[in-house]
């Protein structure tokens, strides 16, 4: 497995070069996992992408580098210390570095001679491919560049990449794998396709990093697939629009990050009280307040589980990886509609923006739950008391009855009440849906040893790093390690947790936050306490190697 860093100032083309490299590498058959480290600015600063690839698809990123494309001197200075002794660093001729691993390339001169100095990045790109043993053909290069560049810029960039490819000698052993036919997509894209596959008809949102990419991806395909995307005037409008659309019978979703979710909280309660199916995405970033807008964290778990006044049933699903993002987003729509509840999807900057190779998901096997027909005789009542707590739902426009929503406590017809008896019956009806929902929960995925000495516990996007950490730890002579990675976090599935927690000698939670929020939740719900924690809250995701190091230090304490 190789790890390549592409770095430069904002506006220097880091993103385009990375996209093109990913495509060439996947075309050669390798599995790819790329993370982006962006500053919250449009020009200047220091941005980089970490492109990891291999014969098997990487599950996460790493910070030890085999190659470095430095579009400016700052990138070289910052990242040369992480470069492997056998690695390479590509720079321009102007670099004054004396490091033997540095290859000074006249990218600018070559690009100028080809007639466009802005193609200098493609020269470095071509050289990097050669050094990494990735084949280059003009036939393959044209369509790849055409995905990301204006048509008239494609030929010069293909020429520049070819010139770069010819300017250096192969350094690394070539890698090959079965991934050419896989999809290459971001976590945000996987989420969007999951929503489309589930029949999304309405998405309203207000731009906020790192959720904006959902708004953009969905807008891009709205016309072709036929759903509606509306940019709301604020997050309060976004969730209330989604509620209106859902009430009228369109599968609806809204998305935001923690700050916007804070504004949506009252609307979340309306979804609970009105029993309106709704999917809400919270793409987490470090808080509180504006926090670190372009970084990652898993610190909204406790918040979204308890957000809004009062008590109502809800479901919270944390997305673990790209494939999971597709399937769980589709499942979120199914759960929301089946139970007439809000379902919250927790993702984060790391997963939203990371790109990965996944097999083509089958969009046909997702069950499409239909609104229940009115049952029994007599007048239709939107909030009819039923054994399951789920009332038959008809849509406005249906001649069989009237659809009512009331944010006040209400009777079966949806009219305001204040009497104690109806209040209790309605609370019991709504909360009673939880018992059924619990039967639909998915247990956390188990990784590694079946009877581990150490049980690692994580959730959401810690999935990839945990997979690598478990493999690294079990490759050594130390204690045997297993892990549970939670996707469904609320209601908390307990069966597998109780089983493994009891067997293990030591239990360690691994989370991207300060307080160990999943550990708190587990203790509150089950009484099971962790013996140690591996936590990080600097806005940069833990790597598998970092987890393995820290677990080793905690082992046996």
């Amino acid at each position, binding site marked *: 497995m190789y790890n390549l860093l592409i770095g430069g100032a904002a506006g220097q083309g880091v993103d385009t070069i990375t996209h093109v490299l990913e495509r060439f590498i996947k075309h050669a058959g390798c599995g790819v996992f790329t993370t982006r480290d962006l500053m919250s600015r449009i020009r200047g600063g220091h941005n980089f992408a970490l492109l990891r690839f291999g014969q098997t698809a990487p599950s996460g990123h790493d910070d030890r580098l085999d190659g470095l494309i430095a579009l400016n001197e700052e990138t070289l200075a910052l990242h040369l210390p992480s470069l492997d002794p056998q690695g390479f660093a590509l720079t321009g001729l102007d670099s004054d570095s004396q490091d033997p691993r540095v290859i000074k390339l006249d990218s600018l001169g070559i690009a100028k001679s080809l007639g466009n100095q802005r193609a200098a990045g493609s020269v470095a790109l071509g050289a990097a491919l050669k050094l990494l043993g990735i084949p280059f053909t003009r036939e393959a290069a044209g369509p790849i560049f055409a995905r990301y560049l204006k048509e008239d810029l494609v030929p010069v960039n293909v020429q520049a990449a070819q010139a770069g490819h010819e300017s250096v000698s192969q350094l690394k052993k070539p890698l090959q794998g079965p991934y050419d036919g896989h999809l290459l997509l971001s976590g945000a894209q996987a989420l969007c396709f999951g929503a489309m596959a589930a029949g999304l008809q309405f998405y309203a949102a207000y731009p906020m990093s790192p959720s904006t990419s959902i708004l953009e991806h969905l807008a891009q395909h709205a016309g072709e697939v036929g759903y509606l995307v509306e940019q709301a*005037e604020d997050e309060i409008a976004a969730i209330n629009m989604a509620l209106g659309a859902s009430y009228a019978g369109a599968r609806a979703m809204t998305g935001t990050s923690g700050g916007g979710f804070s504004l949506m909280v009252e609307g979340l309660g309306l979804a609970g009280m009105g029993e309106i199916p709704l999917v809400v995405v919270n793409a987490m970033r470090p808080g509180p307040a504006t926090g670190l807008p372009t970084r990652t964290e898993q610190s909204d778990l406790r918040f979204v589980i308890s957000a809004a006044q009062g008590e109502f049933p809800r479901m919270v699903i944390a997305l673990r990886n790209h494939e999971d993002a597709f399937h769980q987003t589709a499942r979120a729509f199914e759960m929301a509609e089946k139970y007439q509840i809000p379902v919250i999807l927790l993702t984060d900057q790391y997963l939203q923006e990371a790109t990965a190779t996944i097999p083509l998901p089958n969009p046909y096997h997702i069950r499409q739950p239909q609104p229940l027909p009115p049952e029994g005789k007599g007048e239709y009542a939107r909030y009819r008391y039923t054994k399951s707590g789920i009332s038959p739902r008809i849509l*406005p426009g249906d001649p069989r009855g*009237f659809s009512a929503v009331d944010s006040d406590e209400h009777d079966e017809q949806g*009219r305001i009440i204040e009497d104690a008896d109806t209040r209790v019956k309605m609370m019991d009806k709504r909360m009673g849906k939880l018992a059924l929902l619990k039967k639909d929960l998915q247990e956390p995925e188990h990784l590694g040893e079946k009877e581990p000495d150490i049980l690692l516990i994580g959730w959401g996007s810690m999935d990839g790093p945990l997979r690598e950490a478990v493999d690294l730890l079990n490759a050594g002579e130390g204690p045997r390690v297993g892990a549970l990675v939670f996707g469904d976090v609320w209601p908390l599935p307990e069966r597998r947790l109780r089983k493994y927690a009891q067997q293990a000698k030591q239990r360690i939670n691994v989370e991207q936050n300060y307080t160990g929020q999943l550990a708190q939740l587990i203790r509150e719900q089950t009484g099971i306490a962790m013996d140690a924690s591996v936590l990080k809250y600097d806005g940069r995701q833990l790597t598998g190697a970092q987890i393995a190091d820290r677990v080793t230090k905690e082992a046996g304490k």
Partner: protein
Amino acid sequence: MTQQHIYQTHETAWCPGCGNFGILEALKMALEGLNLDPHDVVILGGIGQAPKTPQYIECNSFCGLHGRAVPPAVAVKMVNLNLKVIINSGDGDSYGEGGNHFLHNIRRNVDIAHFVHDNQLYALTKGQASPTTMEGMVTPVQVEGSMSIPFNPLLVALGTGAGFVARGFSGRPEHLAGLMKRAISYRGYALVDIFQNCVTFNKLNTYAWYNSRVYELDDSHDTSDLAAAMALASQFGEQIPIGVLYEKPQPDYNSRHAQLSSGQVLAGRDNDPEVVARLMRQLV
């Protein structure tokens, strides 16, 4: 035919003499006059005394959150243009808590009718100043009198580009019903600000106060004249005009929208799995 369906329920929570009764009566006249099937009508409200209206009339209803009647209303229309969407909400709900939605949905121009029961104070919370409270009015909170410049919803709507702007009075239900019918029939966002007396808390803007000041606009007013409409919207003193101040046809949201202009209904629709699969295959 529809008359038998639309009826007042057995109980309202309004004070005897409340202006809301006149508005509810006008609303029923308008809906029946337009011969609308109540199953195709959705009435939405936020929170307050006015937004209880949907509770008292038999049709589809959405009594949502305070200040948030407009966002769900426009979304209902976006996903199902076959429904008639009406908002009944108060001045605090529409212009205060929901001010941002008011502004931006005038711009969005979705085909809804927005009836604002404007009693110039908060009634559900017992008499505090609202955006339209007159300067100097003493309330339990504004104990020295309201200090803020009153909000002029008609002028703001006209200035923001609304295509239908009217004012009515709860004490003239037949005249009001006429305004409501025109607002419901207008294709686009239609605002009717309705003077409404609050018998319990507003001792300044009483039924008599409104009744002695309002005058009905006649045919001499050209409703396509924006400058004239703005001049009328600025009249708030001894003489206050009621009627349609401004009416201009302009393309509404659905008819301008690439996906909705053909009459596509998104409610109850599913996506074509082949199309989704084709888009995903483009990522190979």
